């Protein structure tokens, strides 16, 4: 029996660990956020919708679905909300090449119980377990440029994004309507 239990534990079936400090070995750059903690850990890249509901396309959704990090040490599902770019960009593009694989990530955990922020993550770099080289989690804007060649030009992507600009053209910067927000804009820039 003892041998059987030891086998289970060594196979990763240990009971969930208590809250832990994942900062050891982290080289994450601070963003000076209120509730950030550097965190480096190993995890499996998963399709969150699949993980929760059992609706599981082969390719983790091919980039349209949000991806999670199923942390190896405690089986906690960490939610990467953000990549490493200060450009309003998420983490899926960075993690999709590692769909279903064991990875090591380094970045910032956000834990702010007052706001319900638990296991929220900003990924700064990622590598497959066993690989020496890290990949910086900053590919989003290059991938956007490839898929939006018609939006080529100066300025950040979010000023040129066709879908965003269509929404603003239709409903204004505030969403209340182009005509309706005109007095506010006039006052704003007077």
């Amino acid at each position: 029996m003892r041998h059987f239990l030891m086998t289970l534990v060594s196979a990763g079936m240990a009971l969930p660990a208590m809250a832990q400090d994942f900062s050891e070995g982290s080289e994450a750059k601070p963003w000076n956020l209120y509730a950030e903690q550097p965190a480096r850990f190993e995890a499996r890249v998963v399709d969150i919708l699949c993980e929760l509901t059992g609706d599981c396309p082969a390719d983790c959704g091919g980039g349209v679905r949000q991806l999670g990090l199923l942390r190896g040490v405690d089986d906690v599902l960490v939610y990467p909300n953000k990549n490493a770019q200060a450009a309003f960009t998420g983490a899926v593009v960075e993690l999709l090449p590692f769909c279903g694989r064991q990875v090591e990530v380094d970045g910032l955990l956000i834990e702010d119980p007052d706001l319900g922020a638990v296991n929220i993550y900003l990924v700064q770099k990622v590598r497959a377990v066993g690989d020496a080289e890290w990949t910086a989690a900053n590919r989003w804007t290059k991938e956007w440029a490839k898929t939006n060649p018609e939006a080529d030009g100066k300025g950040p992507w979010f000023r040129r994004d066709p879908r965003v600009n269509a929404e603003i053209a239709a409903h204004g910067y505030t969403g209340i309507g182009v005509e309706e927000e005109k007095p506010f804009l006039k006052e704003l820039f007077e």
Partner: protein
Amino acid sequence: MRMRLLMAAILLPLPGAVQAAEGERVQIRGEIIDTWCYYSGVMGGPDAVTGTAHHTCALWCSAGGIPVGLLGEDGQVYMVLRIEGDDGSAGGDMQLRLASHEITADGLLYHRDGLNYLVVEKVVTDHGITKLNHEDYGPVPPFAIPEPKE
């Protein structure tokens, strides 16, 4: 004793296995928000990163693939994974169109490791953008609205 240990071991989750569960049927009214700005505080307090003040940034974040959430009337955030058959939770068209909108959503709720996840099966009502706070906060962030060119 041996049998108890064996049963306990069997009930432990298998590593790597999908732990799909039945969702709880719920109906939640709230605002579609971008979760990173809300959770991180990078743009200020929670009141400033919702509503009309934050609408342009909500569009940017949604188009940028940052997860959207439904900020319920109960103050809880529900991470949205699907809306009416559209599983484009990373920059999809449906969630972009609903940025800052108050909706009543009927769907399935899941809880996992401290977060709420919502599969919206039907947007029962789209109430439109109802939180009018741009006069209070101005645009958040301030550069969200570019100064008109002369």
